[in-house]
């Protein structure tokens, strides 16, 4: 009876390690997807530069991302998150090789949550300003600048998509790390 028990224990832990390894590979792939998404967002927002074809004698009508400090924060936040993801790929590979690591997974969850908060703050702040640029606000007398700067508006609206996609990937990353922790 004891021999049968030992035999069943050995066969029970092998598929568990296999699933954990598969989940770690999924974690690695998701991280790469998130790098692409946030980097694309930062680049799309950072390379905005639209000049209107008319100008007066003194002012040239131009729109760039650093005219609005919120967009500067957006570019910086996305760059920081991209850099963090590249650095965390190393830890992710370590988790593929050594599926039993627990403390490093907790550290990874902590940093993932902090980066999720930074990314979501940057993306939603930029979304608020993009909404304002599209619609304006009559009560505060803020004019909708999108009516003049068309391509600038399209770029800044499109760059939000990568950032929000990165947020969803982060939520999946935290969830898979937590699942792997609870399965050991």
């Amino acid at each position, binding site marked *: 009876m004891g021999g049968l028990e030992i035999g069943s224990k050995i066969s029970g832990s092998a598929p568990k390690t296999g699933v954990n390894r598969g989940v770690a590979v999924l974690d690695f792939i998701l991280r790469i997807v998130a790098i692409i998404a946030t980097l694309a967002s930062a680049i799309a927002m950072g390379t905005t530069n639209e000049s209107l074809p008319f100008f007066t004698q003194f002012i040239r009508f131009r729109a760039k991302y650093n005219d609005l400090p919120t967009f500067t924060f957006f570019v910086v936040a996305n760059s920081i998150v991209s850099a963090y993801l590249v650095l965390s790929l190393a830890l992710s590979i370590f988790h593929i090789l050594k599926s039993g690591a627990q403390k490093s997974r*907790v550290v990874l969850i902590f940093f993932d949550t902090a980066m999720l908060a930074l990314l979501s703050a940057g993306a939603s702040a930029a979304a608020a300003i993009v909404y304002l640029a599209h619609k304006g606000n009559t009560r505060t007398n803020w004019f909708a600048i999108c009516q003049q700067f068309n391509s600038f508006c399209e770029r800044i609206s499109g760059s939000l998509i990568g950032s929000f996609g990165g947020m969803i990937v982060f*939520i999946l990353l935290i*969830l898979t790390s937590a699942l792997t922790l609870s399965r050991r």
Partner: protein
Amino acid sequence: MEKTEATTIEISESSRERKGKAPLLAAAVAHDRAASGYKRGVAIFDLILRISAATAALAATITMGTTEQTLPFFTQFFQFQASYDDLPTFTFFVIAMAIVTGYLVLSVPFSIVCIVRPVAAGPRLLLILCDTLTVTLATSAAGASAAIVYLAHNGNSDANWLAICQQFNDFCQRTSGAVVAAFVAAVLLIFLVVLSAVALKRR
């Protein structure tokens, strides 16, 4: 014949193993009890943090939801008034922080279940998933409103947007305070996620 030999061998092995297993079992039980005590402490701290985060989120909701300032002067046709629903971002802030407060209050029973049963992984996994989603919602609301509050304080010369805080002082102070409270709630929620992760670890 072979069958009876096999059964006698198995019986003798199991009795030897039973004698050898006893100290291992005792060590495992003591280890489990220490682990569950540690996890119970983590769960109690989790409950305290949850109630604090609910208080902060409630304060943010109420502060933003009750902002309304009417300037003492008025022209012949309209009165200068600022309220939170003049800006759609602030409306989103009030709704989102109300959802966060409601979720935190509803998750207190789950936290109590985790205190009572420290080793169970199911409630903790549910809490970590919902806490992550709530972190996203809270930081999203706080970040968007912070952008609008910054714009209201400083204006923007390139987009020709005036800084309305120069006229509506009280309104600006209240909205800034609400944004700070929302960020406090978001930081507490991040701690909650990390705490759940620490408690999920099998020692």
